[in-house]
């Protein structure tokens, strides 16, 4: 029956519908968050550029989908190597917004960590598929070590930029990919650990924020955390911490989100959004534009579009003809889901602010194209599966 459905629907239209919904939200949110604003850091013609990148991204997605993802198994190490090289190159690039994270390319700029995330997914997937297809697959700690090694290099380089958010995404990718791959006892251990960490963070945020502040200050003192990273965590722990400085963004963001109420303040009519009260709203804090102007109805619709996307991706992962495809798509889901949760959550004091973009919504050409390429990879997995059934 599943095969019948796949035969009728060669392409996953629901997934495309989810992407279309996200693209529309993204373009509107960028228009809203840059509308009537001027300043050196406000991108000019952001809306038009975003529409252009949506089109380019769709093209890149189609191109990627038409390509056989299995060919990546031959080149994933090269991909990985190039991405690591670029992460090294970016260290020597001029600092922007306090981070060496962008390689300028004329009027545009490219963020190597975006590519590195995808390269990491493909590389880990390739390695894990290699293990699966080995004569005597080993799912113990010895196969975990190379995965950890593959993760650590780009993670450390990205952390050095500094781009804590991107680095955490890499951790999430690795964690969830390995969780799917690992043997049962490891899986249970990791799942338990995950639940424990979430519970622990929640408990700290809710009940022990004062003690946590002490711990974080100790960590800053011993250079385990950079100052501004600590400030972000402190801000998350204590919503009233440093409202005019470090806590300002998140504080304003939450006001914007909350003031959207049920139906929002109306497109291009958000008090905080139009007033430019949220710095860099078109990138990290883009969700506030959606939440303020479209309210609970609009912003939960946006989350539901994401959920639909993840649902389709997980189905693709489950239906993949080989575990390589499954691992890739799992990695993509982990990447997107972590970013979505982290990004939207930080606007609402649900997670610490880490400087992470909202996939498909935030302004930025290179990350949008990488996101489309990632979906394209998943589509490639889904299409290849059909091809297998037809030929088989």
């Amino acid at each position: 029956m599943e095969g019948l459905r796949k035969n009728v629907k060669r392409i996953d239209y629901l997934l495309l519908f989810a992407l279309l919904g996200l693209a529309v939200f993204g373009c509107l949110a960028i228009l809203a968050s840059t509308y009537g604003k001027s300043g050196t850091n406000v991108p000019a013609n952001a809306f038009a550029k975003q529409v252009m990148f949506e089109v380019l991204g769709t093209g890149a997605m189609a191109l990627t989908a038409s390509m056989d993802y299995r060919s990546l198994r031959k080149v994933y190490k090269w991909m990985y190597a190039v991405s690591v090289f670029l992460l090294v190159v970016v260290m020597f690039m001029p600092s922007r917004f306090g981070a060496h994270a962008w390689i300028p390319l004329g009027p545009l700029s490219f963020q190597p960590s975006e590519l590195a995330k995808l390269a990491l997914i493909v590389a880990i997937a390739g390695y894990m598929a290699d293990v699966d297809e080995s004569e005597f697959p080993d799912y113990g700690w010895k196969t975990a070590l190379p995965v950890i090694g593959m993760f650590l290099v780009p993670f450390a380089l990205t952390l050095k930029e500094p781009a804590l958010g991107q680095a955490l995404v890499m951790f999430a990718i690795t964690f969830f990919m390995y969780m799917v791959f690992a043997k049962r006892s490891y899986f249970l251990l990791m799942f338990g650990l995950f639940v424990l960490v979430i519970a622990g963070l929640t408990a700290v945020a809710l009940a022990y924020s004062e003690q946590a502040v002490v711990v974080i200050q100790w960590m800053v003192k011993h250079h385990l955390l950079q100052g501004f990273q600590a400030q972000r965590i402190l801000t998350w722990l204590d919503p009233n911490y440093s409202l005019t400085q470090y806590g300002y963004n998140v504080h304003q963001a939450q006001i914007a989100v909350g003031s959207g109420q049920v139906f929002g303040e109306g497109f291009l009519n958000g008090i905080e959004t139009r007033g430019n009260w949220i710095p860099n709203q078109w990138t990290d804090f883009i969700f506030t534009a959606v939440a303020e102007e479209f309210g609970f109805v609009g912003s939960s619709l946006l989350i539901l579009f994401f959920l639909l996307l993840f649902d389709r991706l997980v189905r693709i992962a489950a239906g993949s003809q080989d575990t390589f495809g499954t691992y890739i798509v799992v990695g993509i889901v982990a990447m997107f889901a972590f970013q979505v949760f982290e990004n939207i959550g930080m606007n609402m004091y649900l997670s610490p602010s880490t400087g992470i973009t909202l996939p498909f919504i935030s302004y930025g050409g290179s990350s949008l194209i990488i996101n489309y390429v990632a979906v394209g990879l998943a589509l490639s997995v889904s299409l290849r599966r059909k091809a297998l059934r037809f030929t088989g």
Partner: protein
Amino acid sequence: MKWRRTKSKQAKKRRNTQALQPDMPVAEAHRRQVVARTGVLYGMVFCAMSALIARLGYLQIAKGSEFRTIASTTMLSRMAVLPARGWIYDAGGNILAYDKPSFSIYLTKLPPGSGQDIAAIARRLAPAFHTTAAKILEAIQQNQDQAQVPLFRGVTNAQLAFIEEHKSELPGVNIVPEGQRVYPFGDLAGQVLGYVGSIGPQELSQYKKWHYLQNQIVGKTGIEQEYERLLQGQVGYEVVQTNNQFVPLKVLGYDPAPVPGKVLQLTLDGHLQAVAQQVVMDAVQKVNAGTNNVYNAAAVMLDVRTGGVLAMVSYPYFDPNWMLSGEAYTKHLPYLSQSSAEMNHAIQSPLYPGSTVKPANLLTALKEGVITPKTGFYDHYITRIGLSTVHDDDGHGWVDPVKAITVSCDTFFYEVGLWFGKWFGSTDASGGGPDHGKDYQTWLETDFARGINALFGGEAAFGLGQLTGIDLPNEQPGRFYIEDARQGYIRVPYDLQAAQDAIRKQGYYVNYGSPADLAYAGIGQSQEFTPIELAQYVATIANNGVRLQPHLLDKVYPPNTRLPGKAKPLFVFHPQVLGRIQAKPEYWDIVHRGMYGAVNDPSGTAYGAFIGTPYKAAGKTGTAQITIGGRQVDNSVFIGYAPYDHPQVAVAVMVPGAGYGATTAAPIARQLFDTYFKEHHEYFPKDQWEDMKVPADWSQSPAYTVPENAR
């Protein structure tokens, strides 16, 4: 490659573990496990997304209105909006002053750290406003204690567009609608209306007490100043949503809304005023064509029944619009600085009234028993007073009280004055002397003081030498004088109140006057009165002693009232009786008949000026000797009322330097009477009737254009 090798080395161990499911290949078993775990992953993602939506629901639905309030209030700024000033109408419904909508540019000083660079803003603004950055900065400096600094008023559309376009470079610069005062008839009653302007440093403390904002525009002179609190209205606040650079984004409304000022209607008759200004100017031009002695002139017409001012002329004329812009002010500065155009001579320039005081003195003399209605003697032309000599301007033959007024006999009033002081026997042959041969100094401190007190006091009862209480700021009272014998007979002010108190308490008043003071006081050469005092005085005569406060305000209407209309006034001015002079009707009759004769008897001094009037007026001329610019000239004065039998209007005209009262002042008064009755459709045939409209082309008329170019 390396990884695979590593693994194959451990292959055996692995195989044992995986072989627990013997009926399924290891790879397939693992694939199923992986697929199953994608389900777990989806479950985790689902939980995460649900958590987001749950949190959204809490923030947006449960706490939404709280956050909305925070968002709305923290980004709001309140901009003071000045109220529109009330309009001023004349009695006939002509608009004398209104507020034209206009725009002003304000700078709101932003808190430190907002990135506001005032110097940069000044540099940006300067070219568009034809000024320099330094001047703008200076204006900002001067208003250092204000949060909102007015930069420019009455800006052009192009300048507004400039501000709008460069909004983002001009943080804190706002466009605020404000009224621009306009006096549509220019110099028509210019000094009466006054003008508006910024609060000056001296006024600041007073206005602060009234909770004014420093940038409010207030009345500086005239009616605008007198009724400032009525005209001003109440400041409102516009609530503006701003961005974090305090650039206004959206006007949300008023809280509270500004309340425009109340609308005033004056008793002033604009048409009559226009005619009066024309007539006064013509008269001045006529005199100056010959002698060029006249620098100023004044005329006042009062409604006898109410005290309402129907016309108040002060030449040279003044257009309050000149004070409203720097450009206009600069243009007219030569005229303003070289003339007394800003003064309201009608209330601020006391001068010798000459013979116009005779009716008052006559009445007082009759009341005090100094003379009787039957007193009469042959005009001896020359009168010796002690060692000095005064003379009449003519020999008038046999004079009695009525004739003394009609022909303006000086000798009669020299004698009356002397008799007030019990100085008897002055004739053309004898200098006379104190009653009962009193010692001179004793006489001076008793009989003289009592006499001159009675004489001046009688005048003061008519409001002469007193503030009339007219509703205009800066009224100057007239003065009484005596000549100080110790100081070579120079004129010194005579403190009437102190003298009266001294006589009452101790029976004498030490002074160094001389009997000549009595004679001079009798003919109006020892006191200075303003035209408004004279007008109030003659109106009091017309009212048989009921003295009313002259006033300009007639009605106060609610804000935004447009006249004529059905709006009910909030306030109507009721005549204020300031005093009543009690005298026998017979005495009033003598005064009236004397004044009637002055106008209607061929021997009357003003007869020539009033030939052929369809109504009967009564009046008195005055020709006082004054000095203007070192030259001995005559102050041409006339007071009068009409109609004689049931007076409606009273007039006082004073043209210093214009010769006899009959020559210049009386003809002006006649034209005012004529115009009044033509307007009120009385006495004159229908074809001569006039309406109360101010000529629309007033500011093109000679009365507007000539005075400024006259000298």
